[in-house]
């Protein structure tokens, strides 16, 4: 149990997928303009990454490793992720049409979101050996992504009222904010085993 809590905290906060590994920066900057959209994106990524993490773990454990095809890892993982994203797109379009409109191009772009492929690969690089660990790790990586993007969206919403110097308006100040946010998250470094 302690293991799982450590994995969760480590994944969500200490080794935050966006702010420590700099994965998934594209949606992090692209969809963090409004709080509700950012939360929607975070939820979608969490959903996709949990399913993708589970499926890739199963495929890797029960298909690739027994057949000695570990080198197919990347291509199969991308395959699984793409399929999962398609599924999520259908679900969102059916049950959340407004969210589907708001996502626009970013929902299909989750397919190429490196945070998701990164998470699936980290499951192996970090040596999580049970399905439960893999699922918890994937889910809390998604939670970490949501946390980062929601904080970012909140900051950017407040930023619209700030008197930003002209040359820094738009993308530059956003990158500054992201950098400071990443530095703030460095304060968590070393908590837990941070595997």
């Amino acid at each position: 149990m302690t293991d799982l809590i450590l994995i969760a905290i480590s994944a969500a906060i200490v080794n935050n997928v966006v702010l420590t590994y700099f994965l998934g920066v594209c949606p992090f900057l692209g969809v963090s303009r409004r709080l509700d959209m950012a939360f929607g994106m975070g939820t979608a990524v969490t959903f996709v990454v949990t399913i993708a993490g589970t499926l890739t773990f199963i495929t890797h454990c029960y298909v690739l490793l027994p057949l000695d095809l570990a080198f197919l890892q990347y291509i199969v993982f991308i395959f699984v992720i793409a399929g999962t994203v398609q599924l999520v797109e259908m679900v969102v379009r059916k049950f959340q049409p407004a969210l589907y409109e708001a996502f626009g191009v970013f929902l299909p772009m989750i397919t190429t979101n490196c945070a998701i492929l990164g998470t699936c690969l980290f499951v192996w690089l970090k040596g999580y050996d049970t399905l439960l660990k893999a699922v918890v790790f994937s889910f809390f990586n998604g939670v970490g992504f949501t946390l980062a993007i929601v904080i970012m969206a909140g900051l950017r919403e407040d930023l619209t009222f700030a008197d930003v110097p002209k040359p820094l308006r738009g993308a530059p100040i956003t990158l500054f904010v992201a950098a400071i946010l990443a530095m703030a998250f460095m304060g968590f470094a070393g908590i837990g085993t941070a595997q």
Partner: protein
Amino acid sequence: MLTTILTSAAVMLVLGVIFSVLLIEANRRLAVEVDPREAEVTVALPGANCGGCGFASCSAYAKAVATGRADVNRCSVGGPPVAERLAALMGVAAGVTFPFRPVIHCSATADQRLQHGDYRGEATCSAAHVTGGVQGCTYGCLGFGDCVGSCEYDAMVLVDGLPRIDYEQCVGCGVCVRACPRRIIEQIPFKAEQMLVVGCANHDPGKVVRSVCRVGCIGCSLCARTEPQLFSIEDNLAVIDYDHVTGHEDLHAVHAKCPMESLVYFGKPESHHEEQLVGVATSEIADRPAPVEHGLDWRG
């Protein structure tokens, strides 16, 4: 080695089949009902995604049409046939639509523009427009061909320092209108195959215009006196009111009267007065000569 390749292929194949079945099933169960008219409208549109209608893509425009948020006659690529088809689909009257095509409000070739400066800056209109000093006229075409470069349909070519439009290729997307830093390209409704256009944008008094251009409009108002319903003089420049042009009137008399030859015809070439058509797709353009090397040489 061979077994590895074969097992890899087999694994990928099996995974592919599993995912296909899964997604097909999901697609069937989670199908969302789209307004069937939207799909029909999408098919009816040309699919050029040029943005000429003001929407980001053809599908965005189709959606707007299907929900009644946009008029059916906005597609300039498709023109009247598409407007009619959309009107039939949506059950509304199409109204009279004309294809909007660009015309250039400058008809002075390189040697007709006077007071050339020694411009050695970047060879683009936008740069030359900012620095100035390329030629006397501060309103007219600079001749570096920003519009020609912007055209995605190969419909423009630079001849004698003046862009010519090949109306067989042009779809009226309006990219060239936005590319021109001097704002002398305008989209007008082509109510006839050839439209009479004021080939000048210079608002200066006649004397000043004469000093910078051989063919610029001097605001003599001869055209306005001959055809008062269509022509007017605004700020020393003749303006044609295209709302009142029907496309059937014969304007050759006015065209012949213009002392500065600023009135020019734009449109598809027609044999009997081809010599008058400055802006038409002439045989030269059909042959696609090498574009004039725009640099310093032709400015003297």
